[in-house]
């Protein structure tokens, strides 16, 4: 069956460092992925998306990389800030499949 999973359930980084959150997917036909951020007590919020015809997409302080060969994508957050503390989900958008999430904790 389809699955979207994350390599690490938790990630702690020092404020100012870069964060990398990884995600693996199983459906090679997936062509659209989204990263969401979910703060405590709130619904997920869109961060950035990428289509399968791209390898990289950049936003403000965030970059998503897609490696279709190994069915892997990552979210990179530059200069991580306390406000970045949240759970991050990757999602394969076509079939509404979300990974289990990675909790990012930013240490002062």
């Amino acid at each position: 069956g389809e699955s979207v999973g994350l390599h690490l359930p938790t990630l702690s980084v020092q404020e100012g460092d870069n964060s990398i959150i990884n995600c693996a997917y199983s459906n090679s036909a997936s062509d659209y992925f989204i990263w969401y951020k979910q703060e405590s007590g709130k619904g997920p919020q869109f961060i950035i998306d990428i289509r399968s015809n791209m390898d990289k997409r950049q936003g403000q302080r965030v970059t998503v990389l897609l490696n279709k060969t190994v069915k892997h994508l990552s979210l990179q957050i530059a200069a991580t800030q306390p406000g970045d503390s949240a759970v991050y989900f990757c999602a394969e958008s076509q079939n509404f499949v979300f990974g289990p999430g990675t909790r990012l904790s930013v240490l002062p």
Partner: protein
Amino acid sequence: GAGVSQSPSNKVTEKGKDVELRCDPISGHTALYWYRQSLGQGLEFLIYFQGNSAPDKSGLPSDRFSAERTGGSVSTLTIQRTQQEDSAVYLCASSSRGGNEQFFGPGTRLTVL
């Protein structure tokens, strides 16, 4: 407001009772989704509405779960004869069309005693 709203924000019910959860999507969004999120878990897809098409019910866990969307806008998720394992946060999202960025509501936290 401009966002997705859900009501109630919290619902406590007794095992065996029926509950209705409401979702008001962003005006003009044709796609509406329901998800379930258990504590510390990811999102579990339940059902998807797109315009006037038949809904994708493939994620509904049992026939106790049903959802409708009236007039292409408001949606209600109904859980009949609730069980303790139904306790979770139920999230609704909408998008301008299926497969696009989804805008989520704050969720309804359901607790079944």
